[in-house]
């Protein structure tokens, strides 16, 4: 779980400020709001991204993801609240010198070579050419002198990643960087992101590909209808306290009878799709639970401490907030 952005103690008289919390954080937002005329895009976002982390940012379409990313990169002014990026104001030159950004749906001039594109961007960043290092980093060193028009979509996306890394930024925003990549390409990008994190870079990853986010991000946040509805360490978010026991299909009414046999100190179990889930079961209680189920004549195929996929967690978070999002998707 994230640590809080150290708001002042209650009653101290001062409101929590981004500056107060920003010393160890790459991004801090407090009550960040954005209105587009009558449309509320952000309804008071509170967010903290630690330096040196790969941070996943998720949400359904229209949830406010792009708006927040644009505010953080200085492309949109917030309507209210506080925001701090790398200890400074988003959009300021001092921050932009330390920032990398790969916009969504970025298109390159097709007749430039990858190397030329990176050199042009280096000039805009005001840094020396580092195309050789970056092309090697994203696995395009052999294709650096070919026209971008000859690149596959995946190669162009990797080139975009290289462009975002020009100037060796401290914080890089990647908007859907793996959407056009094949499985090998995605693995390569994961490796790059892990490498960047190991070097101390902060990566803010906005992606619809939940499995990618789950694999690469050590922290994440979910935004919906302009509000962050969950954020924290990925492991915490995916962890479901309890035990799941796969027993196969049960006859109608059998589950209630079995539930009555389980130790009374346990929370009520649930059954769905051939799996009994027992919340709050400690490791020491597992043998007793399994013995009870076996003694009841159930075939026990698998016993595991529960952990859900990010997709399951995502759907669960949105459950009830959107028509059409329900628990069936978790099957």
């Amino acid at each position: 779980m994230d640590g809080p952005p150290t708001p002042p103690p209650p009653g101290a008289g001062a409101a929590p400020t981004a500056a107060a919390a920003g010393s160890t954080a790459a991004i801090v937002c407090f009550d960040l709001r954005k209105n587009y005329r009558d449309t509320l895009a952000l309804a008071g976002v509170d967010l903290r991204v630690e330096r040196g982390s790969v941070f996943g940012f998720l949400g359904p379409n229209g949830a406010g993801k792009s708006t927040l990313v644009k505010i953080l990169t200085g492309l949109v002014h917030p309507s209210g609240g506080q925001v701090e990026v790398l200890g400074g104001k988003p959009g300021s030159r001092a921050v932009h010198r330390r920032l990398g950004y790969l916009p969504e749906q970025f298109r390159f001039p097709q007749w430039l070579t990858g190397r030329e594109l990176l050199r042009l961007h280096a000039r805009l960043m005001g840094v020396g050419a580092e195309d050789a290092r970056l092309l090697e980093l994203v696995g395009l060193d052999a294709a650096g002198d070919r026209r971008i028009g000859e690149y596959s979509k995946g190669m162009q996306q990797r080139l975009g990643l290289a462009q975002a890394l020009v100037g060796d930024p401290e914080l890089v925003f990647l908007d859907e960087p793996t959407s056009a990549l094949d499985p090998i390409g995605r693995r390569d990008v994961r490796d790059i992101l892990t490498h960047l994190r190991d070097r101390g870079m902060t990566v803010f990853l906005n992606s619809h590909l939940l499995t990618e986010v789950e694999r690469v991000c050590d922290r994440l946040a979910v935004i919906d209808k302009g509000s962050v509805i969950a954020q924290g360490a990925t492991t915490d978010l995916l962890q479901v306290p309890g035990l799941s026991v796969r027993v196969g299909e049960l006859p109608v009414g059998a589950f209630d009878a079995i539930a009555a046999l389980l130790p009374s100190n346990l929370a009520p179990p649930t059954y769905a799709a051939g799996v009994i889930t027992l919340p709050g079961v400690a490791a020491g209680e597992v043998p007793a639970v399994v013995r009870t189920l076996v003694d009841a004549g159930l075939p026990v195929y698998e016993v595991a401490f529960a952990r859900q996929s990010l997709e399951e967690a995502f759907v669960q978070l949105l459950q009830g907030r959107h028509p059409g999002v329900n628990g069936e998707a978790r099957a």
Partner: protein
Amino acid sequence: MTQPGAVQPDDPRGLAGPHVSGTEATAAAASPAARTCPDPSRAPDGARARPKRGIAAVGPRFLQVWYRDAFVFVKLWKTNLFPPLIEPYLYLLALGLGVGFYVSEIDGVDYLTFVAPGIIVTSAILQATFECTYGSYFRMSFQSTFDAIISTPVNPEEVSMGEICWGASRATLAAAAIMVSLAAFGRLELIWAPVILALQFLVGMQFGALSLLITSKVRQTEYFNFFLSGIIFPAQMLTGAFFPLSRIPEMLQPIAWAVPLTSAIDLTRSIMLDRLGPHSLLQLAYVAVATLVFVELALRHMRRRLIG
């Protein structure tokens, strides 16, 4: 740190968006300080320092934007350079040699000599106009190039200034190409070429800025048709490029002279026909001031477009 399981209305998993307890979050939201964005105009010592906007915000980095556009252009120089030059040459042939055959003299000179400055200026403004409408819009909306540039230390004003200067450069290139053939026809003294080209750069900036101003307002390229058909093409025809302004109704003449393009064309003609006088300085000042105004407006409106 919000405890897992501490379910809040907007935090069904207890993973806590705000990182603060409900009470603290409420306090934070209620605080006037928390409701306001950090004031970018407030200096560390508390004194107010207005952020620079418009031309005042332009630093040398606009040259990098210009360089980027120029580099991309040169990569496709065959495609980029020749087609736009065909049209003015057709004008030269059709009007100068074709129509000119039937016009013995106009304004004291043969028709080709009269119309040549008009073709130079109108070709220049068309280049700047197309570059800063379709070209800039494409980079802004379809390629997201401006988003990527603005996330570097280059600010929106420098992006716009780079675009305007690149439009002006293309205007100057177009003018130069026509001037080469005019020199070959003996209709241009090369000693005036640098002055004429400098003037075309200024006019190119003016129309580049006007075009970028329009670009800052449109949401789809079809709207450029109104600008081109409603402003640019009439301006081409009614500002003395192809016939003397004395031929248009007298009551419309002040309106025609109010259009800065009229002064630009007349000034170019005065240079080429060696008719410079005190009025030329006034015309130059008018063109320069109009350019400054359009550039300032374009920079401010493009900032609003680029930074939502």
